[in-house]
């Protein structure tokens, strides 16, 4: 698992921006991989996955599919995302940041 840069992923923290962006890109690629292979995707999402891609609006997940999708992400990244934090995650970018926090927590 790629670890470089994951420790510094917090938004709005000056001086950590560059490593943060690199980490985001790597995470977003892996998230896109999960989206493509995810069984529950109602339409095969053929669009480009960007930090702005909305999990509910663009990927068209209903409330249960969001939870199943998060579970697939948890397996891919070997993290836990508590259920009550899921509503804070609107976009793929939010998810990437959340994952960095988690991985940072593991290392720390």
């Amino acid at each position: 698992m790629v670890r470089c840069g994951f420790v510094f992923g917090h938004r709005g923290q000056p001086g950590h921006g560059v490593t943060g962006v690199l980490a985001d890109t790597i995470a977003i690629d892996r998230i896109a991989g999960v989206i493509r292979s995810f069984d529950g995707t109602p339409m095969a999402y053929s669009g480009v996955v960007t930090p702005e891609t909305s999990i509910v609006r663009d990927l068209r997940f209903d409330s249960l599919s969001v939870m199943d999708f998060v579970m697939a992400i948890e397996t891919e990244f070997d993290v836990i995302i508590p259920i009550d934090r899921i509503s804070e995650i609107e976009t793929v970018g939010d998810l990437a940041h959340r994952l960095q926090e988690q991985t940072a927590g593991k290392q720390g």
Partner: protein
Amino acid sequence: MLERHRALKLASERLRDEDGHNPFDIAFEQILSPTEALLDGRRILLFGTNNYLGLTFDEACIRASIAALREEGTGTTGSRIANGTYGGHAALESQIARFLDRRRAMVFTTGYQANVGILPALAGRDDHLLLDADSHASIYDGARLSDAQVTRFRHNDPDDLARRLRLLGDRPGNRLIVVEGIYSMIGDTAPLAEIAAVKRESGAYLLVDEAHSLGVLGATGRGLAEAAGVEGDVDFVVGTFSKSLGGVGGFCASDADDFDLLRLASRAYMFTASIPPATVAGVSAALEAMIRRPELRADLWRNATRLHAGLVRAGFTVGPDIGPIVSVVLPDPGTAMRVWNRLLEAGLYTNLALPPATPGGRSLLRTSVSAIHHPAQIDRLVEALAEIGLDDGLLAPARPAPIVRRDELALVSGQRARSA
């Protein structure tokens, strides 16, 4: 304010526009027995209840209920912690504890309230709840009400559970794993022996909700924990009175020290009226009947096996486990609605389960059997479904029937051991 339910409104209008009945809007004119009712003036067979032992019309249960009604009145009008505990409530708790071989039991007004009451009382701010992904709404709601961190693990996957426990590492707080004996949508059972092994290694606590498995699994009907031989690893047993026991209510039983403290820590126990005396008496009599008459469970399994084998032979895709709940997987909600309605026209009531309320977003025709169904009635259901299936293009015509395996038929009184 109801604007936000726009999507529900659209979905329900779509249901009403279809020909036939709306499954959410069925009102039986008369209930004739645990397995028959009147709808639109016609007799229909009930294959969509949770009346597993058929005890809702049992003479002894009705007699006990009537006696309590006459002696103690129509309701307690109070909470368990105020004026709402009668002798019957306390006696029922002792009866349950004795039956489950636990030190203490507490009775809630519904099974839903048992989960919504017990989970927040057990798990606090620093604790961690790990729920099976297919958990019932009452478990999710109870978890949400608690201050604990909640995570769901892949359905019936002890490895994913172990992974999450490992990730929690040595963070402070207790871990409570929550699983069910039989899952209500597909009717599959938890791999409880493996889950118990994970629990032992991790030092977590384990709660098993035996809602659909009490009276159904285990040599004496104590549930999946008994059947899997791991009662010693289960810290909290939750159950309901509204299925095998034919009433309404719920309970939690445990050997935990100071268990009775939970009576002052469970809001859903305290801030609600207690079960009416007639229901307490009926449930108590049903529990006694269940204990005294293991043949009820044998009959239930005979019927469950017959239904499962029949549907498999007809070519339907059903769940992995034989049990009183047999769900047929259908390709989409529209088909499921159509099949459900055509079955109802044929005089057979079943349940419909549609996404997003179903695991994996599947469309399910959920059927369930009772101990008192006649084999001929089960054959009728299979025939009708097969006919509809052929007609609707769901089944290929003239399939050679697969040989039904002996081990599918040779079940002993509800005893189903899961290999460790």
